[in-house]
C-alpha cells in the first residue's frame, strides 16, 4: 500500500462520451474546473476584504479561521449564482428558444 494518495482520483467505471468529438468532453470538464476556481478565488477575496474591514490587517491564519455568518453566506451564494448565470447565458438562451418553439407547436 502507498502512503500518499495522488488526487484527483478517477472513478472506476465507464465514462460516457457525450459529444461527437471527445476533445469537446474534455473542454467541457476544463471549463467547469476553471469556473470553480474563479469562484474559489472570489470567496477568498471576499474573506480577505471582510477580515480587513473587521481588523484593518490580515494574516493567512485569519483567512483560514474566518467563517461566514448567515448574512455573509447568503451574499456569497447570490454572488455565486450570478457567476453561474453568466457562465450559462447561452445555455439558458438555448432552453428559452427550444421551449418557445415547443409552446408554439402546442398552440398550432
Amino acid at each position, binding site marked *: 500500500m502507498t502512503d500518499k494518495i495522488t488526487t484527483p482520483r478517477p472513478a472506476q467505471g465507464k465514462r460516457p462520451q457525450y459529444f461527437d468529438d471527445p476533445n469537446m468532453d474534455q473542454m467541457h470538464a476544463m471549463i467547469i474546473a476553471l469556473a470553480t476556481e474563479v*469562484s474559489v478565488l472570489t470567496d477568498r477575496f471576499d474573506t480577505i476584504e471582510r477580515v480587513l474591514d473587521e481588523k484593518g490587517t490580515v494574516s493567512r491564519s485569519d483567512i483560514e479561521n474566518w467563517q461566514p455568518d448567515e448574512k455573509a453566506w447568503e451574499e456569497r451564494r447570490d454572488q455565486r449564482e450570478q457567476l453561474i448565470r453568466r457562465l450559462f447565458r447561452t445555455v439558458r438562451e438555448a432552453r428559452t428558444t*427550444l421551449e418557445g418553439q415547443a409552446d408554439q407547436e402546442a398552440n398550432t
Partner: protein
Amino acid sequence: MLRQEPHAVLPQSSVNEQARQDFLNQLGKHVLNEITPGNTAAYQRRVLPKIKAEKGRDPESRHEIRKEMVRDPYYQMTSSFQRTVQEMMWNSVDDTIQRQLPDLIATAKTIRDGDTLGSLHLEPDFEIPSYVADNDHHCMPGGYSGDLVDDDITAGALYDKGAFIYTQGLFGPRMDGIGKAAALMIATSFPDLRPNKILEIGCTAGGSTTGLKSAFPDAELHAIDVGPAVLRYAHARAESMGVAIHFHQMNGEAMTFEDEGFDLVNCPASFHEMSRSAVYNVFKEAHRVLKPGGVFLLSELPPYEGVDPWTQFVRDWDTYNNNEPFWGAVHEMDFADVAEAAGFNRNDYWQGNGPGIAEANQLTGAVEVQNKKFMGSTRGGGQAWYAHMTKRES
C-alpha cells in the same frame, strides 16, 4: 444554510476547499433546476417527431428514447455538465480527506482502541463481491470497498461528506435522514413493533444506522457492509456521537448471523447497487435471519413498472451516466416476486410511497426542497419508496 454537524472523523474543509464544495453544490443545483428541464422541450420539439417519423408510432420503451436523445445537442450538454459536476464534487471532498488522512485514521484508531459502546468486526480474507469491487458507484472514486492505506477510512469519509453535498443537505445535518424516515415508515405500518434486535444491510458510513438507532434506542443494532474503510469510519463516527452500533464486514448474500435472530431487517437504498442475483440472495438471507413475525423493510427509488417511457428515461439517467450499472435492471424487478422466492408470503408483502428523507429531518421548509427534480437520483425532497414484508409465524 444547511451545514453538516461535526463529529470526530468528519473531515474539515479548508477555506478554498469549502469554497470549491459550495460552488459545486450550487452549480449542481442550478444545472438540475435551471438547465436540465430544457430537455423536455428538446424531446418534444426534436426527438419525439424523429422517432414518430421513423417508426410510425410513439416510442415503446426508454431505450428507444435514449437512442435518439444521446444525439441531441441539448441533452449532450446537460448530461456532460451533470457528470462533470458529480466527478468534481467527489474530487473536491477527496482533497479535504487526503490532506488530513493520517490524523483521521489516528482518531478512528484511538476511538476503536478505547472503551466503546458498539464494536467493529473486520474479516482479513473477506472477498468483496464483484458488483461493488469492479465499479465505483455514483462515480465515487474508490467506490464502497476502496482500501487505500493501512486502517484507511477514506471511503466512509468520502461518502459521509460527499453525499451531504450531493443530496444538498437533505439527508440532514447528521446524515441520518434515511434511517429516521425508515423509522417513521415502521411507526406507520407496524405501530406495535418493538424490535429488540435490528439488522441493517448496506450501512456505508452509518448515517442511516444512527438514525434508526435514535428511533429504537433500546434495541441492539447490527450493521453490515462489504468495505473495510466505510466500516472503520462508520464505527468511529457512531462512537463519537455516543451511539452503540455493532458493525460487521459481511456480505448480505451470505451472512454469518444465526437463523431467526432479528426482529427487524432494514436495507436502506442499497439494492440498486447490487446485481440481480445478489438481490435474490439478500432477500433469502433477510428471511433466514428474521424471527417469525419479524419485518423486512427496504427503501429504493420507485420501480419503472407502469411508468411512461419518457419518465422512465428521465429516471434512468444514473444507469448510463452516474456509474450505476444495476440501477435500471433493479428498478425493473418485481420485489414481490423476489420476496416470494425468498420464502415470504405474497400476502404479507406491501410496496408504495412513504415518509421522505427531508420530512424525517423536518427540513421540508428548506429552500433546497423546492428543487424541480428533473434527472438523476432523488435529492430527498419528495416521498420515498418502500417495500416491506413480514415473516409468517410457523
